[in-house]
């Protein structure tokens, strides 16, 4: 895009110095309850995966400098999809349903994979 088009499309978000958010991430998994433990999956395992592979990767980083966003704009939509992909590839202890990112108190985004439309209610 031209400089004018970038300014018109992104407004204040086009500031080349960047701006920050306090993102809130919610990961939804599903499965049958395991009888011996009473759990769908051990939340400690999910927490550990998210902390190492999501928070560890993105927290306190300038998203534009990360390899993940070398070819795409780090909108919250694209960040949602990137996080989903990391979980889908690496977290195997329960079925991944959807990822939700709250960008601000007023804006949130959800992604359930290409075929996950039915779970967004």
């Amino acid at each position: 895009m031209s400089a004018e088009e970038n300014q018109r499309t992104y407004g204040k978000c086009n500031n080349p110095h960047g701006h920050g958010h306090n993102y809130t991430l919610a990961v939804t998994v599903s499965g049958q309850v395991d009888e011996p433990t009473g759990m769908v999956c051990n939340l400690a395992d999910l927490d550990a995966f998210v902390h190492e592979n999501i928070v560890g990767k993105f927290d306190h980083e300038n998203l534009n400098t990360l390899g993940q966003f070398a070819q795409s704009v780090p909108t919250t939509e694209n960040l949602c999809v990137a996080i989903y992909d990391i979980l889908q590839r690496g977290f195997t202890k329960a079925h991944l349903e959807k990822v939700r990112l709250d960008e601000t108190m007023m804006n949130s985004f959800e992604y359930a994979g290409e075929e996950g439309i039915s779970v967004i209610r």
Partner: protein
Amino acid sequence: MVYLTRKAEFSASHYYHNPEFTPEENRRVFGKCNNPNGHGHNYTLEVTVKGEIDRRCGFVVDLKQLKDLMNREILDAMDHRFLNKEVPEFSTRIPTTENLAIAIWQRLERKLQAAQLHRVRVYETPDLYADYYGEA
């Protein structure tokens, strides 16, 4: 498909009354909500749209446009208003949370261009909300 939700808050008053009911029936069905002087709520509105990410800009929809649309179509009409008396839809419909969700959907669906409306959620109080997904 990515789902995007934008929230807004507005304050409005209303009361519940069906002119086809007797006064006793109105009081029995609607209780305190039948007070003709009205009562108020701080509503929270969540509008969820869906669409594919535009590869050029990374958006499903320009959030500023969605925010402006919600301001024009909903907040300007309903914020700090007495719904029964000042919002045309509620001259013939009872402004319950359910009907409010439907009316908001209908106002937005007419004007939304860049993405598809998925759900309108209206919180009347933090403990009570209505979801509307359209007729389909």
